[in-house]
């Protein structure tokens, strides 16, 4: 029978082997990506337990992508290749079952099929289906197919950063132009204090509504914060504010600035946030945001 020690040894060895294997894997894009994905090597000093440490709650309000990612050329080529193979192998369509012989719909379908074959195989190697000439006048022509909406909105063309229809493939985050704890006018995430007896996530939600209006259907994902901004030790101001960020999704509605603490809003992607925000703030905040 296995002794407990032997079993523990085995699992440890396999774990070590797994770790080794993982480090010796094929070259991946992330290895070549550079420092952005490498783990931060800053020393993780524990925060000072000063009684003056104040806690603030902030919200990273995210509008999730509305449309799917655009396929890159490799993916497009592969999908075309696979659909050609599928077209070669699938059973021929039983159009005698679905269409009345000689109807307009059948003619339409045959024309579309010919087009699809030509697109897939690219040549006059298509077996002609016999189209009967007699046409039934009582047949109803198929309903005009509605064209789908374009993937680029006019807000993309105009560059309207207040619009929620912009950059539909990407994750948009709400950035707010207002005063931070030091009193400077900066672009930051909506932020506010925590009252007594209130949980952090409730405080975050309340601060969001206080700064950006109540006409938003939001959902705070979890009770746990997704990130923290620790105050730099070299800051001149003595009250050390730790800002805990909470992730929320916006499902409907629009944010409106309250005019007092917040003057302007913008819905921005990760790169656009980088260009608008302070260097120090960006360093604390960038690891919470989605790249895509």
């Amino acid at each position: 029978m296995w002794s407990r020690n032997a079993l523990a040894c085995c699992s440890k060895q396999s774990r070590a082997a797994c770790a080794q294997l993982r480090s010796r894997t094929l070259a991946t894009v992330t290895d070549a990506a550079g420092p952005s994905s490498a783990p931060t090597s800053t020393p993780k000093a524990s925060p000072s337990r000063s009684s003056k440490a104040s806690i603030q709650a902030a919200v990273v309000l995210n509008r999730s992508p509305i449309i799917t990612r655009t396929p890159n050329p490799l993916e497009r080529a592969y999908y075309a290749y696979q659909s050609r193979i599928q077209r070669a192998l699938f059973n021929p369509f039983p159009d005698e079952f679905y269409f009345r012989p000689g109807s307009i719909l059948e003619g339409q379908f045959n024309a579309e099929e010919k087009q699809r074959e030509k697109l897939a195989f690219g040549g006059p190697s298509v077996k002609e289906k016999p189209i009967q000439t007699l046409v039934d006048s009582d047949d109803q022509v198929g309903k005009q197919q509605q064209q789908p909406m374009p993937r680029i909105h006019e807000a993309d063309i105009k560059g309207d950063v207040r619009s929620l229809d912009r950059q539909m493939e990407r994750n948009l985050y709400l950035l707010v132009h207002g005063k931070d704890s030091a009193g400077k006018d900066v672009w930051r995430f909506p932020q506010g204090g925590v009252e007594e007896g209130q949980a952090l996530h409730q405080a975050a939600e309340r601060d969001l509504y206080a700064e950006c209006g109540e006409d938003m259907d939001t959902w705070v994902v979890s009770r746990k914060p997704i990130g923290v901004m620790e105050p730099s030790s070299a800051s001149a101001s003595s009250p050390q504010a730790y800002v805990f960020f909470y992730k929320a999704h916006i499902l409907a509605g629009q944010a409106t600035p309250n005019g007092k603490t917040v003057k302007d809003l913008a819905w921005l992607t990760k790169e656009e946030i980088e260009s608008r925000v302070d260097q120090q703030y960006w360093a604390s905040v960038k690891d919470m945001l989605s790249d895509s």
Partner: protein
Amino acid sequence: MSFALRAVREATPPLRVAQSSVRYARKDAGPDPRVEHIRRALYPGNIRNKETPIGSWRPNVGGRLQRAIPSVQAHETIERAWFLHQRHVRKRREAELERKHRFMVRAMEVLHELDPKLYKQANQEEDPRVRRPEEIELAKTLKAPEKRALESRIRGLFPRELRVPTDTPPRSGWNYDWKPPFPRV
């Protein structure tokens, strides 16, 4: 290879897989061929020596496949390139998730150091069945549709309105005119 295995491998597949009596039961179709079409659609033939009307088996598969793919080696290379690409995408996604998770763990550590009470509150599990007293009070003052809206948002579970991304956006676009149906609790 053993003789038994070789015998199994070299055996030709049967021309007729199974007898299906309904397929061959030909009641007189008469002037209306539609019944015949329906029967053929429902009960496809199993004889694999000709192109059947509903095409349950394609005999010219070899030729069509030769036109579809350049060669066996090319096909295998394409498959390998695809799997490598998928691997890159997966690794990128996993790296991003791992980075976010590390940041979250750090935030929880800092919270634990700063305020153990808030930390404990953050770690509490949400019970979706529990209703807070303020919510019960609010529900008493609401009308039926508003009460339904209140009850549909369950704490700890994700909302139904979180939309799955599609290939093209919705016709109505983003709903900018949303107003809260009931005052917030």
